[in-house]
């Protein structure tokens, strides 16, 4: 046990440095994707959002949703489910606990 602690204290900083060096390019890759995919919509994109909502509503009204292929409908379902699941992620953040309201 003492030997383990000793070897950990000598190799610890070296291991940390190796971990950080390994993680840097991976983090850079993550940032590269995040800047395009995860960033919130800018005000310039508001007209696109409006037209998207209009397209959804008109498509629902004209009955185009009956002519979708099953694959398209399944993909739409998955995307909608993912968007709705962010609500529960936000709720976990708001109540500051993963599972329950700890009162």
């Amino acid at each position, binding site marked *: 046990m003492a030997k383990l602690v000793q070897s950990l204290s000598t190799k610890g900083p070296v291991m940390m440095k190796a971990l950080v060096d390994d993680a840097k390019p991976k983090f850079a890759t993550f940032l590269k994707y995040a800047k*395009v995919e995860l960033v919130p*919509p800018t005000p310039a994109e508001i007209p*696109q*959002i409006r037209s*998207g909502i209009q397209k959804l509503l008109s498509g629902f009204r004209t009955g185009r949703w009956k002519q979708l292929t099953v694959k398209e409908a399944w993909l739409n379902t998955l995307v909608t489910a993912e*968007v709705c699941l962010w609500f529960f992620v*936000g709720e976990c953040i*708001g109540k500051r606990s993963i599972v329950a309201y700890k009162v």
Partner: protein
Amino acid sequence: MSVFRLDMADVPAPVRVSPLIKFGRWSFLFAGILWGASRHRSLSKKENALREIEEKTRAAREAKLAEEKARASKAELMALAAQAGIKDFTP
């Protein structure tokens, strides 16, 4: 060894997510945070009120429970004595 490293050249290009989806995701996230925080606050208030009431009635409640327990154990002893055939047993 270089086959396992992720070079910048051969990763796929990032997807241009539709603004409607991005707007939906972020707005649901914020709505969820607000909902969680507000519900947590209201539930904490209720729980604190209940806790106060419980504190106030604690003494009376514990006395009643202790008395119940004493009575039950006395009745049990009498029953045991009757079973064992002891007459005129006073605990």
